[in-house]
C-alpha cells in the first residue's frame, strides 16, 4: 500500500495535470465512480455519462495496471518526436491511453506501473505527464 499522503498534483504545465497526482515518480489517477450505476470514469466528471446521475464518488486509483494493447507510432504530432510508444492500460476499472516509457510495444496482459515521465517536448520545453512503465511480474 503506497502512502497517498506523499501524492500531490503535478506542475500545472504537465499534460493532463488535473487528471492525476504524483509523488514525483509514481502516479495515481483521479477517477469518479457513479453511485447509481457503478460506471467508472477517467477523467473525473461531475455527471455520469452512462445514467446522468450527479451522485458520483471521487477516488484515486492504485499506480499499477495491465496493458490492453500497445504500438510504436512512427508518424505522429511533432511534439512527440516519433517514434513513440502508446498503450491502452487498464487500471482499477478505467482504461486510459498513455505513453510507454519503453521503445518497444508490450504484449497484451503485461503488468505496468503508472509513472511520471517526459512524453515529448514543444517550443516551451519538455512535456511532462502520466505514462506507463513495464512493471514487475
Amino acid at each position, binding site marked *: 500500500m503506497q502512502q497517498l499522503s506523499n501524492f500531490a498534483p503535478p506542475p500545472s504545465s504537465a499534460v493532463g495535470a488535473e487528471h492525476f497526482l504524483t509523488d514525483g515518480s509514481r502516479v495515481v489517477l483521479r477517477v469518479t465512480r457513479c453511485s447509481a450505476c457503478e460506471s467508472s470514469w477517467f477523467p473525473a466528471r461531475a455527471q455520469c455519462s452512462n445514467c446522468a446521475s450527479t451522485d458520483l464518488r471521487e477516488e484515486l486509483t492504485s499506480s499499477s495496471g495491465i496493458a490492453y*494493447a*500497445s504500438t510504436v507510432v*512512427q*508518424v505522429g504530432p511533432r511534439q512527440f518526436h516519433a517514434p513513440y510508444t*502508446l498503450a491502452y492500460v487498464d487500471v482499477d476499472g478505467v482504461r486510459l491511453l498513455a505513453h510507454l516509457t519503453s521503445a518497444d510495444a508490450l504484449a497484451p496482459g503485461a503488468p505496468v506501473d503508472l509513472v511520471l515521465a517526459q512524453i515529448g517536448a514543444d517550443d516551451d520545453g519538455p512535456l511532462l505527464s502520466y505514462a506507463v512503465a513495464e512493471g514487475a511480474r
Partner: protein
Amino acid sequence: MSAGREVFVVGAAVHPFGKHRETPADQLGYLAVSDLIATTGVDPARVDVGFGGSVYGGSLLAQRVLQRVGISGQPVFTIENACASGASAVHLAWQSVVSGAADCAIAFGAENLSSLGGGTLPLTTADLEIDQGMVMPAAYAMRAQRYLNDWGATVDDLTSVSVKNRANGVDNPRAHFQSPVSRDDVENSRQIADPLRLMHCCPNSDGAAAVLLCSEEVAEQLNGPRVRVAASVVRSGRFSTGYRDMTWPDITERTAAAAYAQSGYGPEDLDLVELHDAFAVAELLHSEALGIAERGKAHAEVTTGQFDRDGRVAVSPSGGLLSRGHPVGATGVAQICETYWQLTGQAGALQVRDAQIGLTHVTGGGIFGVDNGACSVHILTNL
C-alpha cells in the same frame, strides 16, 4: 423508422479520388453534383432538399456546392459526422423522402485533405487521448495487436486484405490507387504503427461523390436505372472509459442489426459489401460485426478467397478505402455510388455477377471513449 414509402437511388456520380491539391472541396463537390444533374436529367427546381457531408470543407459547404447547379433557395444542410459524414448526408436525404417531407433529395460528400498537409489525419477535437499523441493509425494498430493476439491471426492476414483490395481497385477509374501490390510490397512498406505498415493504411485523398434519392413517382418520371434503399441507418458510439473489447466494434454490430431489421435481409443475403477498410485490420473487425464472418474467423475468410469479387460475398469489390482512398466526408457517398453501379449492371470490370443486394458501411471518429463516433449502414437492392 422502416414504416414509410419506398425510396430509390436514381443516380450516382463520383469525381475521381486522388490528389487534387489545387481543387478545393467546394469545387470537387460541384464537379460531382454537376455530373449527377447531367446524368439523371433532374430539373434542379425538382430537388426539394440537399445535404452535403464534409469534415474539413468549412461553413455552408452544401450551399456553396449546390447553388452552382441551381439548387438554391431550397433547404440545404452541411453535415459533419467524421468518416460517416457523407453517409449521414445520404441518411438524412432518405429520411426526408421516406417521411414524405420531400419527393426528391440530393446528397453529396466532398473533401480536400491535401490542403491540410501530409501525415496522419489531423484530429481537431482536443481531448485527453489526442493530448497524449493519439492518431488514427495508432488506434487501429492497437486493435490489430489485440485481434492478432486474441484470435490467432497474423500480420500476413492483414497483408492479404491489402493485396485483395488493391487488386480490386486496379480496374476502378475512380480509385486513388489503380495498381496492384504484392505481398512483398506490403511487407516492405514502411512501419506506421506496428503491426500496421504503410500499405495496411488507406491514403488521405481528395474527391467527391453525389447521389439522388427520390420517391417512386419521381423515379418513374426520371426514368433511369434505379435501386431501392432497403435500409438506411446511422448510430453513434457508446461512450465508456471502462474496460471494453476493442476487437468487437459494437457500433457496427448495432448499426447493421438495425439495418437488417429494417430491410428484412440478413448478412447471408448479401452479394457485396463496401466496408470501411481505412486500415486492413478494419475489414476483419467489421466483417465479423456485420455478420458476414464468424467471430475470430474473418482472416480465414479473406485468405480462402471468400471475400473476393467472385467469392461467397464480395467485400469492397471497388477496391475499398485501401484503393479508392479516403476523402473522409466523400467516402460513404462513394460506397453508395459504387453499389448503385453494381446493382444496375453498370460496374464494368468491377461487376459482381448477378449482384442483387449490397451493403455499405462507414464508421469513424477519433474521439476518446468510443470505438468510433459515428457509423452508417445502407442496404440497397434491385429486387
